[in-house]
């Protein structure tokens, strides 16, 4: 065995750290397939998680809250209010003499505030031109993926009471 290294051999550090990076980074077909199968398991677990969550989810409770006087707003007029928490902004619209509808003001696309366009008789999101029906909050046009959450109203004499929020 020679005591001295010849000058044209591999550098000393390569002898001492004999880790071959290219071999370490090599992924075989079997490893890659295993990774894909594990990713598939992850997707399945995600679906199961949604299933478990939907089975054990408690139905939310909503407080009854007075939001307006019936004759407070004109026909095709609006009133903004918050329900059920002060952070949840909503819009109340008087569509005819005795008809009132209320929706969450948060667009289901990217949460911009929607407003009521009396001329077009629809709710409009100015950010990305998402339009919602005043009748049921359904999407008429634009990128929103879901209808606006509707606030269920009750009338007690001249008072309008919010009692629940659907689809929020």
């Amino acid at each position, binding site marked *: 065995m020679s005591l001295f290294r010849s000058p044209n051999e591999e550098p000393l550090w390569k002898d001492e750290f004999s880790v071959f990076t290219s071999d370490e980074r090599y992924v075989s077909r079997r490893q890659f397939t*295993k990774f894909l*199968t594990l990713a598939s398991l992850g997707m*399945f677990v995600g*679906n*199961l998680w*949604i*299933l478990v969550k939907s089975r054990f989810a408690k139905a939310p409770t909503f407080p009854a809250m007075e939001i307006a006087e019936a004759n407070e707003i004109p026909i095709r007029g609006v009133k903004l209010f918050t329900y059920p928490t002060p952070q949840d902004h909503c819009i109340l619209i008087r569509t005819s003499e005795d008809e009132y509808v209320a929706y969450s003001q948060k667009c289901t696309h990217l949460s911009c505030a929607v407003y009521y366009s009396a001329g077009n008789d629809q709710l409009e999101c100015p950010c990305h031109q998402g339009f919602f029906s005043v009748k049921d909050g359904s999407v008429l046009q634009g990128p929103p*993926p*879901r209808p606006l959450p509707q606030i269920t109203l009750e009338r007690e004499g001249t008072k309008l009471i919010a009692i629940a929020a659907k689809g929020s």
Partner: protein
Amino acid sequence: MANLEPSKQRRGLVAIDGAMALIVVLLIVQIWLLSATLETYLAGHVGAVLPGAIFSGLLFSAALTLNSFVSRIDKASRRP
């Protein structure tokens, strides 16, 4: 590797590549299924949640079957 019969190895590689491509397709469908199920669940429609989970389970079992197929072929093609 030099001892392997080339045509046998080539056939094995083709089978493995095909199975891998199929798993990739299954995975893409599963990703779409998960996002669609989550979207409908968040919209308040729980009717699609159970079929989504069942279908996702079927896709996973298909991926698992393909994975075992790849392992078997891989072993067989390496055998001298």
